[in-house]
């Protein structure tokens, strides 16, 4: 019973890290990175992974997401300052959905739900987390 309680507490406290919008929004990050997908919370990837992504924005998961030098510098700084600390995904183009954190947090989501046309992609946070745009990922 006790372990169950501890596990339950853990389950509540872990996602809480992404629940509350504690981070001051960065207008450049939101404008440049939040047009095609939700401006993902920087803590969902470690700094090394953000650097990998920022280095290849001209081919960002198959799309051109290139930035001018000023925006590139500002956003890089913002991501580095607020990046997470967990292990980076191993792929050359790291995805948040490949992190152990993401997989564990979403293990209750059934395969059929991911394939729902309204969800379309696991990067479409807002399909299930209605307030994702505001930085709130509560269940």
């Amino acid at each position: 019973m006790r372990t169950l309680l501890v596990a339950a507490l853990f389950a509540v406290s872990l996602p809480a890290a992404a629940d509350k919008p504690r981070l001051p929004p960065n207008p450049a990050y939101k404008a440049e990175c939040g047009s095609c997908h939700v401006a993902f919370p920087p803590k969902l990837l470690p700094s090394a992974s953000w650097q990998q992504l920022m280095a290849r924005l001209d081919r960002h998961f198959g799309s051109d997401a290139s930035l001018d030098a000023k925006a590139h510098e500002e956003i890089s700084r913002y991501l580095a300052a607020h990046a997470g600390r967990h292990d980076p995904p191993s792929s050359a183009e790291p995805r948040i959905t490949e992190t152990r954190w993401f997989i564990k947090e979403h293990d209750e989501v059934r395969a059929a739900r991911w394939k729902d046309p309204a969800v379309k992609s696991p990067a479409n946070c807002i399909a299930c987390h209605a307030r994702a745009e505001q930085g709130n990922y509560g269940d």
Partner: protein
Amino acid sequence: MRSIFVAAAMALAGTAQAAQPGELLAGYESAARRENPAFSGVSSTRGEQFFNARHGNEWSCASCHGASGVAQGKHAKTGKTIAPLSPTANPERFADAAKTEKWFRRNCNDVLGRACTSTEKGDVLAYLLRGGK
């Protein structure tokens, strides 16, 4: 020449370059005339075809922006909603020269695998200004 300097200085300073869609359209027209001496004006009909056709890659403009750009679009990959692209439906569109150029740069590369010509940009803008009519 002086206006080019002013525009360059503004772009360097990172200032938002407020503009009207009509001004941008005129700019694309004069650039198209310089690029192509045979250019005889923008065509919203050409723009409509261009906007809705695929150009060798997976997506057309309409894949994410919808056929006329008047309704809300949806990103073809992530599913994220995209505000209407036509200035008739969304006054924020084509209201900033630097922002407009940035998105043409990115999206033309995705759709065509190259930069768009000024004629193509002007045609598309002329089509979007028709507001789905």
